[in-house]
């Protein structure tokens, strides 16, 4: 087993994907491809150089190049579009929501649009209101899109492969703060199927369901709380569409205590939906009220102490877990 940085695993996946399938095209800025403003972004240039016919940099026209990718997907390609910052997806909302999400259903199953939209979501530090969005809950409200939220080097590689192989439009939502995270990635790791949650840490007292970067943050909190004698189980759904609710419920039945951690805004966020489903299916299994830890319901502020105040921080996660124990 190799220890790899998250960004290395992601680059390895991108290279393997475009090498393996002629129908894969990356529609992406060459200078930032799939790695945003991280210091590693230039590494995408190596892939762009090796596949000049299938890596194409579009104008700053999210609406048109997302629509182009959808139309190309309907016509036999498997385009992977890098929208860079998740907020930029709003520029392409008409194409992602009205066209891609509806295409198969509206046509009565005649048409498929195997396109991947890649976004970097969340609070990255000083992103302010327009570069810190987490649109996964909004997207979850649009049936027809698969939604992927990786949280480890192994997952980013395995899930990216499944996303590109999928015949459905898929939104691959990554987080720039995961890029330095280290983890095991074997040489021959297969694609990871959608709809399979992973227990990232086994525990007996409290179930923490977390997505994306919040998985890593919750794992850190779990280690701190272990010293206080609280044994936390961390469940990572990895994909919210499809959602592996059975694994979540099995953990809830074991612990009877639930905290859901997610970077969407609190109202109608991913945490809200997961808490609602648990309440409907297993209210009688709960020993304490469930807690949500999410971004407070204000636009994201710029100044560091303000941003910290509204974030799902380690302190707020720890506080929520302790509250379920009382």
């Amino acid at each position, binding site marked *: 087993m190799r220890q790899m940085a998250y960004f290395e695993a992601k680059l390895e996946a991108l290279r393997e994907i475009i090498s393996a399938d002629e*129908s894969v*095209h990356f529609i992406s800025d060459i200078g930032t491809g799939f790695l945003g403003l991280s210091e590693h972004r230039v590494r995408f240039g190596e892939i762009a150089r090796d596949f000049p*016919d*299938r890596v*194409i940099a*579009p*104008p700053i*026209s999210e*609406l*048109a*190049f*997302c*629509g*182009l*990718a*959808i*139309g*190309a*997907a*309907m*016509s*036999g*390609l498997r*385009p992977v579009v890098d929208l860079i910052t998740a907020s930029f997806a709003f520029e392409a909302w*008409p*194409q992602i929501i*009205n*066209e891609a999400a509806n*295409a*198969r*259903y*509206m*046509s*009565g*199953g*005649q*048409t*498929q*649009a195997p396109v991947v939209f890649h976004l970097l979501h969340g609070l990255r530090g000083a992103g302010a209101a327009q570069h810190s969005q987490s649109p996964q809950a909004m997207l979850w409200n649009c*049936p*027809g899109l*698969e939604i992927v939220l990786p949280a480890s080097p192994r997952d980013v590689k395995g899930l990216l492969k499944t996303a590109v192989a*999928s*015949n*459905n439009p898929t939104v691959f939502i990554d987080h720039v703060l995961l890029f330095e995270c280290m983890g095991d990635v074997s040489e021959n790791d297969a694609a990871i199927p959608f709809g399979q949650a992973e227990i990232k840490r086994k525990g007996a007292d409290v179930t923490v369901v977390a997505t994306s970067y919040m998985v890593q943050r919750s794992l850190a909190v779990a280690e701190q709380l272990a010293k206080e004698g609280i044994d936390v189980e961390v469940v990572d759904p990895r994909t919210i569409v*499809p959602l592996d609710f059975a694994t979540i419920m099995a953990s809830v039945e074991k612990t009877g205590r639930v905290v859901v951690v997610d970077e969407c805004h609190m109202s109608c966020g991913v945490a809200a939906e997961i808490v609602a489903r648990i309440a409907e299916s297993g209210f009688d299994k709960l020993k304490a009220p469930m807690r949500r830890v999410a971004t407070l319901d204000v636009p994201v502020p710029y100044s560091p102490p303000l941003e910290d105040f509204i974030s799902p921080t380690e302190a707020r996660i720890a506080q929520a877990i302790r509250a379920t124990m009382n």
Partner: protein
Amino acid sequence: MLLIRHFEEALVALHEQGHFSGHYHVYIGQEATGVPALADLAPDDALFATHRNHGHLLARGADPGRLFAEILGRRDGYNKGKGGTFHIAAAGLGFYHTTGIVGGNIPLATGAAYAAKTRGTGALSVCLFGDGAMEEGAAPEAFNIASLWKLPVLFLCENNGKYGANKAVGAAQSSTMAAYPLTELPGLYKIPAVQIDGTDVGAVFNAVSEATGRIRRGEGPQFIEAQSVRWPGSEGNWPVLPVATNVNLAWDASPVPESKRDWYRSSDPVLIFIRELVAAGVATREQIAEVEKSVKAEISQAVQFALASPFPEPAEALRDVFA
């Protein structure tokens, strides 16, 4: 063209009889654009239509019975009743996805052209849209990319607002579009663009053939604005027939109410073409009347097929979301 006309007129009747309730748009008045424009395409060319798609589907050979069934929400509709009038798709005819969002198909058709070019299929993509779509940001964004990447796409803008009383203001053709003529907008992105009479079958056929020839030779996207005069039956929110069309109107428009007669006398592309055929000696009045009779019989059968088709089982609503 007669098939489209009688299809749409039968559809208005079906709506008035309460067989479907949603909003809908008909292709009456634009038959001389869609029919010749689609006549010369190859089987694997892709087409992206709009909310006003019935004429395009029929021009490409779609089954009128299955079209009616779709619009009536029946099981035998092209989309199993899940799309309805705005979204009729027929993948086998190259209509992969029909959008009801004005301008939404312009990037999609550009994408199908990108796929055709990079896969080297030799196919092209045809984007059919109205003048209103030019007001959406998707239009110039897609024109820019199509031109930059020299993609094999024909942008066919059906401007059915020529002389439109509601839109014309001063020197501009439209109160909602500052760029006029419309060909100037694609022109800015270096896309060759022509304005033609969309009610002239020969002009449309020639312009489209010339444009698709250039596209297939690798010269990149082309733009055609085909103008027609808006059918007076679409003045209100819902289509209303001023008269039931029959070929004799080509020579005697007196059955049409006076306020709507001008359009039938001078702007109806079906009647214009009938007069042309007779004047050129290609067909006699009697022969054309025979064609109309068989078209009407075909439409009548198609309506019966659709009315006999059952509604989908409710559980069908949960299928086809994902592959």
